[in-house]
C-alpha cells in the first residue's frame, strides 16, 4: 500500500478595516465587552446592513495577491443557524458566487516549488465571542454563558485552498507564507493567538491513489499547533488504515494540551445552513478601473522578495525566509543595507541578536530603538576593527536598551579596541617582560601559554586590545 497525505486548508483572516463589515462600529481589539456595538451589529429588529467598501477592497487585493480571478458580479448569502454569539442567527457570508476565486500561491519547500490552488477568497462577517462558565467549558452543561459582541460583524476574509498540500510541513509553510502575504498587504493583524487569523484543515490519506475519508480539524491556534495537530492526525489515520479500520468523515477538535484530536460532531449531524441570497444587500460589481487601481497597490509579495534577497544580497535560504516572513523586518534590513555595509553581515545581525532582543523585550521591529542606520554603524565598527564581534554584541544590547547610537556608546565608554599597532606593541613587550616563564613556554610551542599571555594583554588594556592583532604580535615576538 502506498500512502499519500492530502491536506486542504480553510483560513479566516480578520480584516483590519477601521469599521465593521456592515455598520460603523470600530474594530479595535481588546475593548471592554459589548462596548463596540450598535443596533446593527446586535441584530436589533429592523436594522439593515451596508457593506464596507474598504473590506471589499481588501478582499480584492488579497484575491489579486493570490492570483485569483475577480468576480464581475458577486453576491452575499445568508448562512442560517442558531448560536447565541450570532446576533441575527444568520451570518452574512458568500456562497456560490464569491468575490474572488480560482487562484494559486506558490510555496517553496527545500528548493521544490509547490503551487497550491486557491479555490476562493470570500468576504463575510465574524461572530461574537462566547465564554461558557461551568465545568464543561462548552455550551452544553454550562452554568451560564457570557456573550461579547465586540467581534460580531468584524469583516473576515475566508480563504479556501484546494487539497494540494502533501504534508504537515507543507501546510505549515503554506500558512506561514499566507500569513506573510496578508501582512505584506497590511490588511490583517494576523495574530493567531488573538484569533485574528484562524485555520481549519481537511486531511485524508489516499491509499494507492484512491481518495480517503476526509476529516476536518478545528481549534489550531498557532503554527505549532497546526503542525502538531496535522502530524497527529496523519499518524492516526495511517495507523487506522493499516489496522484495517474504517475512518469516519467527521470534525475533530485539536486538544493542544493533550496533543490529540477528538471527535466534535459527525458531518451527518451537521447543520443545514439553508443558504439563500441576502435580500438586504445589492450585488458587488467592482468597477474594472478600481480593480486595476487596486492591482497597482500590490506591494512586492513575500515570495518575490525572498527570491530577490537571495539573488541580490546573497543571503542564505534560512535567513532570507526569516527576514521576508515579516514585511517590517525585510524593510528594516533593506534600510540598513542603504548604509553601504555588507548585506550578509547586516542580515546575520538582524536574524540573530536583534530578533532575539526584540523577542525578549516583546517589541515589534517597527518600534525597534536601534534604527537601521545604527545597525549599519555597528557593522561598520566591526568591519573597521574598531570593536570586536564580542564587544559589538554588548554595544548592540546597550544601543537597544538606551536608544543611543553604537558610535556614541563606543566613544563614551572608551570601548574602542586598541588597534594602533604601536600602542599595542608596547603593551605586548611589557607583558612578555613581566612573564618570562610563559614567554619561554610559548617559544617552546605551548598553546596554553599564548592564551595566558593574551589574557594578560587583555587585562592590561581592559579588554580593548584587538584580539587578532595582539595574538599576531605575541606570535611574531615569541617564535
Amino acid at each position, binding site marked *: 500500500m502506498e500512502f499519500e497525505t492530502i491536506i486542504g486548508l480553510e483560513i479566516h483572516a480578520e480584516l483590519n478595516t477601521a469599521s465593521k463589515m456592515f455598520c460603523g462600529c470600530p474594530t479595535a481589539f481588546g475593548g471592554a465587552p459589548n462596548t463596540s456595538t450598535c443596533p446593527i451589529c446586535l441584530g436589533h429588529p*429592523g*436594522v*439593515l446592513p451596508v457593506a464596507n467598501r474598504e473590506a471589499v477592497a481588501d478582499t480584492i487585493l488579497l484575491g489579486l495577491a493570490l492570483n485569483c480571478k475577480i468576480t464581475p458580479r458577486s453576491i452575499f448569502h445568508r448562512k*442560517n443557524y442558531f448560536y447565541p454569539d450570532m446576533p441575527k*442567527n*444568520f451570518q452574512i457570508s458568500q456562497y456560490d458566487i464569491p468575490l474572488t476565486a480560482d487562484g494559486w500561491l506558490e510555496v517553496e519547500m527545500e528548493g521544490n516549488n509547490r503551487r497550491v490552488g486557491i479555490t476562493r477568497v470570500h468576504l463575510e462577517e465574524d461572530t461574537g465571542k462566547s465564554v461558557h462558565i461551568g465545568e464543561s467549558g462548552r455550551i452544553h452543561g454550562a452554568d451560564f454563558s457570557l456573550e461579547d459582541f465586540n467581534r460580531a460583524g468584524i469583516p473576515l476574509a475566508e480563504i479556501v485552498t484546494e487539497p494540494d498540500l502533501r504534508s504537515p510541513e507543507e501546510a505549515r509553510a503554506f500558512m506561514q507564507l499566507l500569513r506573510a502575504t496578508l501582512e505584506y498587504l497590511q490588511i490583517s493583524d494576523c495574530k493567531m493567538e488573538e484569533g485574528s487569523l484562524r485555520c481549519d484543515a481537511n486531511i485524508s490519506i489516499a491509499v494507492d491513489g484512491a481518495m480517503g475519508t476526509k476529516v476536518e480539524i478545528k481549534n489550531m491556534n498557532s503554527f505549532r499547533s497546526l503542525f502538531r495537530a496535522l502530524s497527529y492526525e496523519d499518524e492516526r489515520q495511517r495507523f487506522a488504515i493499516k489496522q484495517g479500520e474504517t475512518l469516519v468523515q467527521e470534525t475533530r477538535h485539536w486538544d493542544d494540551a493533550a496533543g490529540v484530536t477528538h471527535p466534535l460532531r459527525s458531518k451527518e449531524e451537521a447543520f443545514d445552513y439553508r443558504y439563500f441570497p441576502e435580500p*438586504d444587500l445589492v450585488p458587488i460589481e467592482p468597477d474594472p478601473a478600481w480593480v486595476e487601481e487596486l492591482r497597482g497597490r500590490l506591494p512586492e509579495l513575500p515570495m518575490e522578495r525572498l527570491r530577490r534577497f537571495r539573488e541580490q544580497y546573497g543571503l542564505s535560504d534560512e535567513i532570507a525566509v526569516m527576514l521576508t516572513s515579516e514585511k517590517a523586518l525585510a524593510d528594516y534590513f533593506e534600510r540598513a543595507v542603504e548604509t553601504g555595509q555588507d548585506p550578509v553581515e547586516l542580515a546575520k545581525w538582524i536574524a540573530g541578536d536583534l530578533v532575539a532582543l526584540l523577542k525578549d523585550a516583546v517589541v515589534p521591529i517597527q518600534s525597534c530603538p536601534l534604527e537601521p542606520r545604527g545597525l549599519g554603524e555597528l557593522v561598520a565598527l566591526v568591519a573597521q576593527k574598531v570593536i570586536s564581534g564580542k564587544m559589538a554584541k554588548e554595544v548592540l544590547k546597550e544601543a537597544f536598551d538606551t536608544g543611543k547610537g553604537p558610535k556614541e556608546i563606543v566613544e563614551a565608554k572608551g570601548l574602542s579596541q586598541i588597534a594602533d599597532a604601536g600602542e599595542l606593541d608596547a603593551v605586548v613587550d611589557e607583558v612578555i617582560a613581566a612573564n618570562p616563564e610563559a614567554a619561554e613556554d610559548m617559544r617552546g610551542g605551548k598553546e596554553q601559554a599564548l592564551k595566558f599571555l593574551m589574557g594578560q594583554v587583555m587585562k592590561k588594556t581592559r579588554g580593548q586590545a584587538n584580539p587578532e592583532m595582539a595574538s599576531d604580535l605575541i606570535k611574531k615576538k615569541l617564535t
Partner: protein
Amino acid sequence: MDLTFSGALEIAGLIKNKEITSVEAVEAFLARIDAVEPDVHSYINVSADIARERAAAIDSRLSAGDDAGAFAGVPLAIKDVLSTRGFPTTCGSRMLEGFVPAYDATVVERVNDAGTVMLGKANMDEFAMGSSTENSYFGPTRNPWDLERVPGGSSGGSAAAVAAGEAPWALGSDTGGSIRQPAALCGIVGLKPTYGLVSRYGLVAFASSLDQVGPMTRSVGDCAALLGLIAGHDPCDSTSIDEPAPDYLTGLDGEVKGMKAGIVKELSSDGIEPGVLERFNATVKALEGLGVSCEEVSLPSFEYGLSAYYLIAPAEASSNLARFDGVRYGYRTDLESDDIWEMYDETRAAGFGGEVKRRIMLGTYALSAGYYDAYYAQAQKIRTLIVRDYGRAWDSFDVLVSPTSPSTAFKLGEKMDDPLTMYLSDICTIPVNLAGIPALSLPCGLAEGLPVGFQVMGPPLSEAKIMNVAYALEGVLGFEPRPPLD
C-alpha cells in the same frame, strides 16, 4: 368643522394659519381615540403624553416664528412595525411586548423632521403576517364600517385609525398587500411605493425583498404629501434607490385624458365578489369618462403569483425572524433549562403566534437542502415571469387596474381556520410586490355598505402617474370616507 375627519393637508393649513394649534389638533384626535378605541382598537400603544408634549413644543416654536417643518403639529399614526426610539415597538407580537427600540426608523425620522406628531403605534397582524389584523397578540382591530368585520391586514390598525377619525393619516407597510387591502376594506387611500423608493431601515423585516413602507390617507392629496415626506435615498438601506424623489403634490393636476389603462383579466374576473366587481366596473366606466381608454389584458403568470409569494415571503421571514431567540432582547421563556436549544424552542413556541410559526416552518422547509431548487428557486423564476409580464404590459398601457381585494371586509373569525382562504385575500395585490412596482388603492364606493378598493398599478417609479389617475378618479367618484361609527 370636525377636525378628526379632516385631511392632513387641511390640518397643516389650519395650524400654519394659526386657526388652530397643534395641541388642539392632538387633543381632538386623543379625544376621538378615547371615544372609539374600545370598539375599534386601532392602536397597540397610544403615545398621548409624548404627543401632547411634542405638540406644545411645536406650538411654541411656531409662535416664535420658527420653521417647525412642512407638517408642523399634524398628528400621525405609525404602524407598530416601524422602530420608534424610546417608545415600544411590538410588531403585534408577544415576542416584542414592551420592547423599546434604541433608534428611529428612517421614515420615522423623516416624518418627525417634517414636524408631525405621533399619536401612537397602530395595531397589525403579528410581524405583518396576515390579512385581517386578527393575528395581533394584543387583540384584533375592528372595521369602523362594521364592527363585526375585520379591517383587513396586516396594516389594519393604521387603516382603521384613519377611517375612524383616530388619525388624519398613517404609515403602513406592504409585503403582499398589507397597505392596499386594509385601505380598500376601510375605505381609505393606500399606496405601496416602488421597491427601493422608501427606506426600509427600521422597518422590522417580514420579507426583505418585498417589504415597503407607504402612506395610508383619507385623500390622494394627503397620500402624495406623505409619500413626499418619506421617499428618497437612504444610505442606511442598500436597496434604496439613489435618486431624488419628485414633488408629488404639485404633480397632481388630474390630467389623464388620452392615457391607456389595462384591466388585468386574471385579477378582475374569477373569484371576485359580485358587489366588488360591480363597483370595479363602474369605476372603469368613470375612468373612461375621464378620457382614459380601458382595455382588458391577460398576464398569464399572475396565476402563479400567490404560490410564488408563499414560498419567497416565508423563506425570507424564516431567516429574518431567527433573531427573536430570547438571548438579547424581547420575550424569553421562564422555563429553567441548562440547554440553550431548549430555551430557543420554548421561547419561540410561546413568543410567536400560530400564523408566524406556520410561515417560519414553510420558509424553513422551502430553503432546506434538497428542496431549495424545487421551491425557492422555482418561485424566483415565477417572479421573473411576473416582472416580464408587467414589462410587456407597459409597452401598451400607462397603468393597469384591478379590484384591490376580491371581497369587501369579512367577518371576524370567518377565515381564521382556513389559512388558504385567508391567503386568497391578497391575490390581487401580491403580483405588485413580486415585481417591485408601485400600486395604489382608491376607495371607489360601497357594496352593501362596505367599502371597495380600486387598484391602480404602474411601472417602476410611476408614483406620480398612478396618483394622478387616482386623483382624477377621486374627483368624479365623490366618495366620502366616513363610516357610520357614532
